[in-house]
């Protein structure tokens, strides 16, 4: 039995691409503006605060990418903490990293708000903070350096586009929401709904229930959903795991691939395989490989270059046209 979903391949496959080339638009930040002092990244102590357990493809690939790139660059002292999905713990983790004397912080925030105490401490010590995958609601270039990541709202909109395509602009759609209270959930939901309202008023969103980003929950909710709403045409899952749970539920209910169009976000290997198998209609990528871009940005900053206040990466779409060929790049 060959277990699926082995760790993401290293190398340049699936590397993040910046959407807006650096320095073309928006405010920028230099070392001078920030008020920091230059140091050598190789000999520096760098802290990385991960938000969730490395137990799903996204987090595994993210942490691995940071660690690999640090090793690649010869950064000797990388300290990694994991908040195990507890926001209070993440705040403490970062504070303890600061206490351990880190000079650069890379943070994958669990939540966008509530970073006040950390930002104060870091600002007092002039420690540059790069947040990855989720934003922090604060002032770039003073509270933190910059944000590197995807635009979740945009992801929702793109998912809506694919759904509208799939249904030909009309039908009934169900949403499998992420964990309640999570910024990602909120933005992916809003993006999707806004787009549907704007472009396809004939699509009704008749059902939204949380699947808490987990496969089992996605399966259970979908089972209930298709039983009492057999007329549903499409399912928008806010991450791949829930989409795959939905697939299991559809299989169990005797549906055929394509009966119900599923669009999801993330781009894990299993999901892309799901497109190949015909169960998923499309997947919007959310690329977790932040290592190279994060350290590149840090190096540029230390070299005195101007850094944009946000570095939005360009995520791909997977669908039947490219799924088979892209399997190797999915994480």
């Amino acid at each position: 039995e060959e277990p699926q979903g082995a760790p993401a391949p290293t190398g340049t496959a699936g590397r993040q691409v910046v959407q807006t080339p650096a320095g073309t638009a928006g405010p920028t930040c230099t070392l001078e503006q920030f008020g920091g002092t230059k140091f050598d990244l190789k000999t520096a102590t760098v802290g990385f605060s991960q938000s969730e357990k490395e137990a799903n493809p996204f987090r595994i690939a993210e942490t691995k990418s940071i660690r690999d790139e640090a090793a690649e660059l010869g950064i000797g002292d990388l300290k990694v903490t994991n908040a195990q999905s507890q926001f209070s713990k993440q705040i403490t983790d970062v504070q303890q990293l600061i206490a351990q004397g880190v000079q650069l912080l890379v943070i994958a925030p669990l939540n966008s708000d509530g970073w006040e105490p950390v930002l104060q401490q870091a600002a007092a010590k002039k420690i540059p903070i790069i947040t990855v995958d989720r934003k922090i609601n604060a002032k770039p270039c003073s509270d933190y350096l910059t944000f590197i990541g995807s635009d979740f709202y945009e992801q929702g909109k793109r998912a809506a586009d694919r759904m509208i395509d799939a249904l030909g602009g009309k039908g009934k759609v169900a949403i499998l929401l992420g964990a309640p209270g999570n910024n990602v959930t909120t933005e992916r939901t809003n993006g999707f709904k806004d787009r549907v309202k704007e472009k396809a008023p004939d699509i009704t969103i008749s059902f939204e229930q949380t699947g808490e980003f987990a496969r089992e929950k996605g399966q259970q909710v979908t089972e209930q959903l298709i039983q009492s709403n057999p007329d549903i045409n499409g399912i928008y899952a806010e991450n791949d795991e829930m989409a795959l749970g939905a697939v299991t539920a559809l299989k169990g209910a005797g549906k055929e691939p394509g009966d119900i169009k599923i669009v999801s976000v993330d781009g894990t290997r299993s999901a892309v395989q799901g497109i190949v198998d015909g169960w998923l209609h499309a997947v919007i990528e959310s690329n977790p490989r932040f290592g190279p871009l994060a350290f590149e940005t840090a190096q540029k900053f230390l070299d005195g270059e101007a850094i944009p206040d946000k570095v939005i990466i360009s995520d791909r779409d997977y669908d039947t046209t490219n799924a088979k060929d892209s399997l190797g790049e999915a994480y």
Partner: protein
Amino acid sequence: MNREQVSRLLQQHGAVMVLGLLVVVGSLAFDSFATTANAASVVVSSSFLAIIAVGMTFVIISGGIDLSVGSLFVLGGVLAAYGSQYGLLVALLLPLAVCGVVGLLQGLVIARTGMAPFIVTLAGLLGVRGLMLAISDEGATTYLVEDRAFATLGQGEILGLSYPVYLTAALALLAMVLLQRTGFGQNVYAIGGNEQAAALMGVPVVRTKVYVYVMSGLLAGLAGALNAARLSSGVTILGIGLELDAIAAVVIGGTLLTGGAGGITGSVAGVLLLGVIQSLINQVGNLTSAFQQVVSGLFLALVVVAQRLLSKAQRLT
């Protein structure tokens, strides 16, 4: 001091001793552990759990349990952040009022109907989180703290420690006096030790129980409000599983879950123990998240076994 007194002290302060031991071991093993900055971060981050644990101590000594504190904590934070647009007073009073009322309702149900506290407060856990989601647009809205004075309450510092630490210390002291030196405290012990007897001895059982749950609710709300002040926002994803941390801290501190025995010092030591364990795991640095969990589970088991053996040894002498 005779032998018996020494051993009694040992048992009552088992958690303090294990804490001391852990700190010594940690300092020897890691250079960056015993720094003031690290100590401060442990103490500051522990203070919110400590406030909750103080309330939980009363509940557990009275023979009950309160599973709703995690939800009240997050509700308190959201309400405080929401209220802060109307100024400091509202920011403080709104969460206290709501959480106090929730505690009051739970207390009334428990004391009046004789339903198990575990299940009543489990319903509280669900219901309060539901309420929190309802007022924050299913968790999508994060209210930001508007009032500077209120934010200062959570962020201001004296001697490198933020205000909540001092407030926690003051509350703990007050709680100790309340527990040991007032009729209310005696009633709490009596009810937990033997509820039927307490009733026959003239203890106002219903009233005391209600007070205990109100207190627990108030303290959880206060901790949430202070935390919101510290974070400058009413974060909606907090507090999941916090009740278990609080219970663990109280029990590690030597309070019996069956009620009737225990104290505040132990609970505070228990909270610090949990904080120190976390900090030690962070010091190790390169454990994967899964290993971190294994290690903290083992630590927890070790601590309770050590604590238990200490108290057993005491009974034999």
